[in-house]
């Protein structure tokens, strides 16, 4: 059994979150991904906590690790022309080039799509940026949170009676890489058919607009856009208090049968308005003294969708995830034995294999000498002189 993407070669110049998450997916499925970094300008992901033993170490960031599993890592100083020359060798090896720099950076290096594809019409290039490579906002620099702001996600998040909300994770850094992965896989499919590559321009804003498309559509149809915990098609539909400090249970009633089951269990008059305040108050009174896990199990057994609101600890130790192989143990020179997330799919025929993330420059010799065929003495000299640093 081998990885589904075995044989696909990717030169990955991307950093932080939006590009590296896409190439992590591809690497976990067997693509050979060479991550290009520099000691002169560290991937900010390497500076992001949590760190091993709380010590700031470019090889000790667990955040970087989960974002870069299964990749090879090299260091190239792209501000040195000799480094750029090596980068060109790497690009010549690759089927796919990935980058998420500000607009103009790859052009200045002569590593942009127009230049590279002139000799390599089969090359696939993926560019990920906050707002895309064209349009009046194409110069915008920022993070996934910028995409949340510009897409409407922030305005539509939070409570309807309060200001916009930024949850403490960059959802734009989650969805855009998945669209980027789709783009690369689609381009590989088209190349198999036509022999031609293409440039894929992924904006972090647009995927977020796609995934909240139903809410934006509802707004166009004249309905209140900011939903809070309400659903247009289910009621009751909310998160209710459970026993203990900051403990909660989510309950979603999808149909009449589930409503009657819930009303019976909670002792609520089933003839009441399911969307009314009286039901909400009665339901909260009923759930407040109960264990969230026990109650969710009882409701689920009665056909009512319900789950405890989990925190990071609950998720980390969830038997459902452990049993499914969601977290895969790896050995890492600095982090030690630790667990990395795997793609959320089981393949009957193909292998999904999650390997360790690279140390900074860990695979310089293997990539430059063994894979690209550059003389080892030349590589050693370039490393010593800072061109491959």
């Amino acid at each position, binding site marked *: 059994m081998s990885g589904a*993407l075995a044989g696909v070669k990717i030169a990955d110049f991307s950093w932080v979150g939006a590009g590296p998450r896409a190439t992590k997916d591809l690497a976990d499925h067997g693509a050979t991904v060479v991550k290009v970094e520099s000691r002169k300008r560290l991937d900010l992901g390497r500076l992001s906590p*949590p760190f091993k033993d709380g010590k700031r170490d470019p090889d000790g960031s*667990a*955040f970087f690790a989960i974002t870069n599993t299964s990749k090879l890592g090299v260091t190239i100083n792209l501000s040195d022309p000799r480094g750029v020359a090596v980068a060109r060798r790497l690009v010549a090896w690759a089927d796919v080039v990935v980058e998420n720099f500000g607009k103009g950076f790859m052009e200045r290096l002569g590593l942009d799509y127009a230049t590279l594809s002139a000799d390599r019409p089969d090359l696939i290039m993926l560019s990920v940026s906050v707002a895309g490579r*064209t*349009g009046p906002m194409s110069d915008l620099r*920022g993070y996934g949170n*910028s995409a*949340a*702001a510009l897409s*409407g996600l922030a*305005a539509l998040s*939070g*409570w309807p009676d309060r200001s916009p*909300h*930024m949850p*403490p*994770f960059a959802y734009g850094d989650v*969805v855009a890489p*998945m*669209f980027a992965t789709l783009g690369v896989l*689609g*381009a590989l499919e*088209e190349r198999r058919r036509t022999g031609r590559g293409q*440039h*894929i321009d992924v*904006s972090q804003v647009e995927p977020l*607009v*796609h995934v*909240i498309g*139903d809410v934006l*559509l509802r*707004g166009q*149809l004249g309905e209140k856009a900011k*939903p809070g915990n309400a659903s*247009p*098609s289910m009621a009751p539909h909310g*998160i209710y208090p459970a026993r203990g400090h900051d403990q909660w249970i*989510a309950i979603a009633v999808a149909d009449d049968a*589930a409503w009657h089951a819930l009303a019976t269990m909670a002792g609520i008059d089933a003839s009441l308005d399911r969307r009314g305040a009286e039901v909400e108050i009665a339901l909260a009174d009923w759930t407040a003294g109960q264990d969230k896990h026990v109650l969710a199990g009882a409701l689920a057994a009665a056909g009512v*969708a*319900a*789950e*405890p609101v*989990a*925190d990071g600890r609950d*998720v*980390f130790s969830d038997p*459902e*995830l452990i*049993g*499914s192989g969601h977290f895969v143990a790896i050995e890492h020179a600095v982090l030690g034995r630790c667990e990395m*997330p795997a*793609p*959320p799919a*089981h*393949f*009957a*025929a*193909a292998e999904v294999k999650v390997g360790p993330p690279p140390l900074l420059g860990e695979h310089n010799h293997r990539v430059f000498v063994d894979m690209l065929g550059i003389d080892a003495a030349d590589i050693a000299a370039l490393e010593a002189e800072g061109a491959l640093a």
Partner: protein
Amino acid sequence: MTMLDTIRVVDLTLDLGSYAGVLLASMGAEVVHHGGCPLSDPAEREMALRGKIERSGAIALDGADILLRGPETAELDLPVPATLIDVTIIPFERDGALAGRPATDLTLIARSGLAAIVGDPDRAPLNLPGRQAWALAGIQGAIAALVGLNARAATGKGDRITVSAYRSAVLANYREPLTWGWTGRVGTRTGNLLVRGKSGVQQVWNCADGFVTWALVDNPPMMRATVAQMAADRLAGNLAAIDWDAILVADMPRDTLETWEAQVARWFATKTRAELTAASNRHGMGLSAISDAADIVTDPHLAARDFWRDAEVDGRPVRVPGPLFRTEAS
């Protein structure tokens, strides 16, 4: 988009999983959907069916490349050709302890740990807008299908793939399980405070005509660019003396950050969203205006990228998202 224009998809999803077919159709595949749509909400229905061809009658798998199934059709016995990529999208593991447990978008977001960190500390946890567990599972289903296609090109054989919507949602919650595993800290709702390392920073700011997002982060060029603009208006205060390369913002005490943020807030309050956006674009401050929902469908940038498509829902003209990304061939 022509990426998948020779790919044929048979789509048996009804609700969960339906977004996978929408994505594949958007990339050029012919997606033939069977079974109708049980969704009563027109916006949810549109998002589940966009770009698909609705068919009734016998399900024909001959010539199909991809089969998409949801929980309602997961176990449907079909004559599956050996070359078919058979993708099933279900809430939990097919053989796990939670198999068959009722699930909705809200309940999966709750179990994934995402709801616990969305919202304000003085109120209940919140769902994300839309149906994000459903969307994430659909995207993962489409990715899995294309991964399977790639393998088939090498082996000539199809695959049977199962995607867990719960695991798809957990993957989006990339920080919280990690933070617990490495630090023993449990995250909770912090409103608009972004907690990193030992402290936290404000993310949503009032400005003269609305809201913007910006944060003190460990990106020295962005910090220097912002402080330079404040200094130009004589509002930088003691921020001008900070060596951003020598500190880790994530480890600064909250009371220090609050004094810095108060100075930033005073400056933001003097500027409009457009002024701050222009300054950020010009100087690399890492700031963005927060767009209202109504702004989005008329946004000039999205219009310039030909993002929207005109459609009709419930007899009314609307705009729906168009391409997933832009492509250019040499």
